[in-house]
């Protein structure tokens, strides 16, 4: 026992003789952080032009004399689209400031010249450079509707006969993607429903939408507009599955999942939801599914989009664009 004890004490002191770390430190040097800020290398793009449609990317370089919190804004000169990248550090490199053509503030980027503006918190310096987008980013996924080619004859719709009704596809510069979008507006004082569109799989030449069978890997995405000072719009999406493959949907024996969006923001916003996070609803409340209760996106035969508003709330307005299913991740427009 004494030998064990001696060995233990020896081992403890052996390990205890840690080599000094007096010449090591964690983090950036405080002396540098408290020194005067200066730009060592000005902002520069890694390439003059970029083709995002072929998965190219561009990154930005800059170097400062000390660690700083910075914000890089890339602004489309034609579209007005904005991409924001923020960080803290003394350098911008491909690790911190790489851009794949995605958008932070809609609309999405087009083929255009973009201005990159770098600002540093607490400093007056603003660094600017430009980069040309030869081809914008192309998103992979199944596009249900981007409203660029007007109303698909395979869809069906219903619009209430209310006041100031404006339920149609429009084309102008406010579109967040392309030039077309669906405008939905009007006053219906006797019903929640203002208008609806049924997007049928047959409109795309299939009995069911060409989606994977794994609901956990599939995301439904849509761009939704919130009108300033109007917070009464609801958009309800219903997903009808043809479980028995007979080409019809039976509400009593087959699953219909829903996702209701309460629009309480201003401007365009991307809404993404995993297919397996959809819920079965009855009269706006969660309810048991009518069918087998299994999420089967490969059996999805119709998507219903309903624009709703409380009939007492008066005029309601919203817009939709770029309805798309993506695989593995939510849409990164």
């Amino acid at each position, binding site marked *: *026992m004494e030998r*064990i*004890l001696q060995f*233990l004490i020896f*081992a*403890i002191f052996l*390990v*205890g003789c*840690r080599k000094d*770390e*007096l*010449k*090591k*430190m*964690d*983090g*950036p*040097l*405080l*002396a540098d*952080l*408290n020194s005067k800020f200066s730009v060592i290398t000005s902002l520069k793009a890694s390439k003059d032009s970029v083709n995002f449609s072929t998965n190219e990317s561009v990154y930005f370089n800059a170097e400062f004399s000390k*660690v700083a*919190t910075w914000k890089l804004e890339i602004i489309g000169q034609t579209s007005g689209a904005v991409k924001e990248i923020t960080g*803290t*550090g003394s350098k911008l490199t491909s690790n911190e400031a790489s851009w794949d053509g995605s958008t932070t503030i809609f609309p999405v980027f087009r083929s255009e010249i973009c201005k990159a503006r770098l600002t540093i918190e607490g400093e007056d310096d603003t660094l600017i450079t430009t980069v040309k987008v030869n081809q914008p980013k192309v998103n992979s996924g199944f596009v249900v509707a981007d409203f660029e080619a007007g109303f698909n004859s395979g869809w069906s719709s219903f619009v209430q006969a209310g006041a100031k009704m404006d339920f149609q596809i429009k084309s102008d510069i406010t579109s967040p993607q392309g030039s077309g979008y669906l405008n939905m507006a009007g006053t219906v004082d006797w019903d929640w429903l203002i208008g609806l569109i049924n997007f049928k799989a047959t409109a795309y030449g299939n009995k069911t939408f060409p989606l994977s069978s*794994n609901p*956990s*890997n599939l995301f439904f995405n849509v761009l939704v507009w919130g009108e300033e000072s109007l917070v009464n719009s609801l958009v309800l999406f219903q997903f009808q599955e043809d479980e028995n493959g007979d080409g019809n949907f039976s509400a009593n024996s087959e699953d219909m999942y829903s996702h209701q969006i309460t629009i309480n923001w201003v401007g365009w916003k991307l809404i993404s939801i*995993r297919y397996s996070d959809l819920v079965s609803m009855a009269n706006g409340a969660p309810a048991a599914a009518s069918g087998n209760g299994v999420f089967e996106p490969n059996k999805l035969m119709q998507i219903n989009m309903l624009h709703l508003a409380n009939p007492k709330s008066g005029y309601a307005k919203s817009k939709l664009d770029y309805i798309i299913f993506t695989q*593995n*991740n939510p849409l990164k427009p």
Partner: protein
Amino acid sequence: MKIRILILFTLFTSLVIAQEGKKVQFLGGARSVLSASDFLTDEKDTVTVGKTTGGYALIDLGIKINPNPRTEILGMFRINNSFGGFWGSDVTFGVRQLHVKGIAGKGIRYQLGNIDYKLSPYTCYNSNPDLILPSFGTTSIKEQIINYESFYKSNTWRQQGAAVDFILDFSKYQDEVKFKGFLFRLNPSNQGALFERLYGGGSIVLKHHKNFQIGANLANVFDVRGTALNNDVYRNQVATLIYQYSHESEKLNTELSGESGFSNTFSTEQINSNLKDYFIHFKWNTTLKKTGWMFEVSYMDNGAEFRSAGAQSKRIDYNQQNSYYQRYTNNQILRPISYYDLYNDPSLYAMEFSTKLMDFNPAINNVLPYGIATFNRRGAYFSVNYSDKKERISTQLKYYRLGEIRGQGTLALRKFDYFIGAINFNPSAVFHWKKSQTVSLALGYQHTNRDSQFAQEAIGLESYTFNVGVSCEILDKLYFIGNTFMFKSTGNETLPIRDSKGTIINFQASTISGNEYCLSGGLKFEFSKDVYLSIFYEHNKNSFMALNPYQFNQFQVVYFMKF
């Protein structure tokens, strides 16, 4: 529907009770809290509603079933009703606990489901570095509620998974070997970028005679490859050696014990951010049997890159917002987390440990913000305890003298002094009164210092925490309880700002100056040891936001029951 299920389940189990006798038992707890608060600021505040009332009643109903003498099944439901919500509104139902445990074969104990688990102070251990002082009087009622709500039981973390343990007994050689193994799920995969994260490990401890034991622990946090759409899996591996040797004589007990080990933390795709380090911690203590004195001397050296998720996780992450008077003043500024919130808001407390380094408040605990396993600390600490055999008085004193091993943003190192002392005085035992009277006093002091010729590197921070509590039995089972709690901190500190991987990317210099005190008093009636009703009033004042000091007055009624 839920109510129906519960009623059916209760009826069913009642029938089983009638039929099976002791095979089914009910256990659980009930609590009701009613409070009325008044919030005041020096500045004219026309936005914040100062007076609020609230409360709730909840019951935790557990059913323990023993289908055979070697198996136990426990399910516990919670029904919570906020006051003001009747006939179904503001009523929530939930499952609080589910587990199966038992003994397989000749003595392999197993448990599945919710498990309260700990291993050793450097592997899996739920330390409490924020409530640094023992609680008495009203603060003990509050801490009891927090511990109950957050499943904190003697430094365990609530986990979900499976655990086994068994002992091999070699009586012939007066030896035994204890084995423990566990596998818990920390988070599920989201089928996207988030991995399935598990926590697994175990221990082997050899006990020789009664006075020597040596063992090894392993605790490993790991992402399961293939459960997310990338290959950058996280690993935190901790392996330690534990040892204990004790010697007992007629007059004294002496013990040498400790734990040493290493950790390796990395992401497989970012090998450059690998953190690897070791620690050593040993203590020697002696108890003088006849006098009741205990002395302890300890040494610790926790490397700067030592990381142990299960031991360094905090109960409170200061990077969150209060749920109680979250904003105040006409500018609706955020109210920082104070000691008042630490004692009153269970929703601030984490129920599971984190693999990220949590934010801490240097004013409250700058010396060991992540518990005894805090990285980048080296030094010694000393303890003196005294316990009077007639239970008239007991004291616990502890002093740490620690320092950093590696500088942060500079080569200069911080040095720390940390003292905690507590005295419990029992006049009833001194004067042979029949009714129970206790006076308790605790003091915490911390000092951080970093000398430097450069002003931006120099640090000096001092904190005092003080708690005095009384509990006087004035009538049979009826107690007067009261507390004076004070907290003061002044100085400056430069806190690191870390990225998502825990690497320091910047520093935030802050000046700290303020104090907080809380006076409280009331009555407590004990129906039995685990059932009481308490009514108390408290006044809390906080000046840590120099321009916007505030104060609370609060009245609370608390009913607590465990059965």
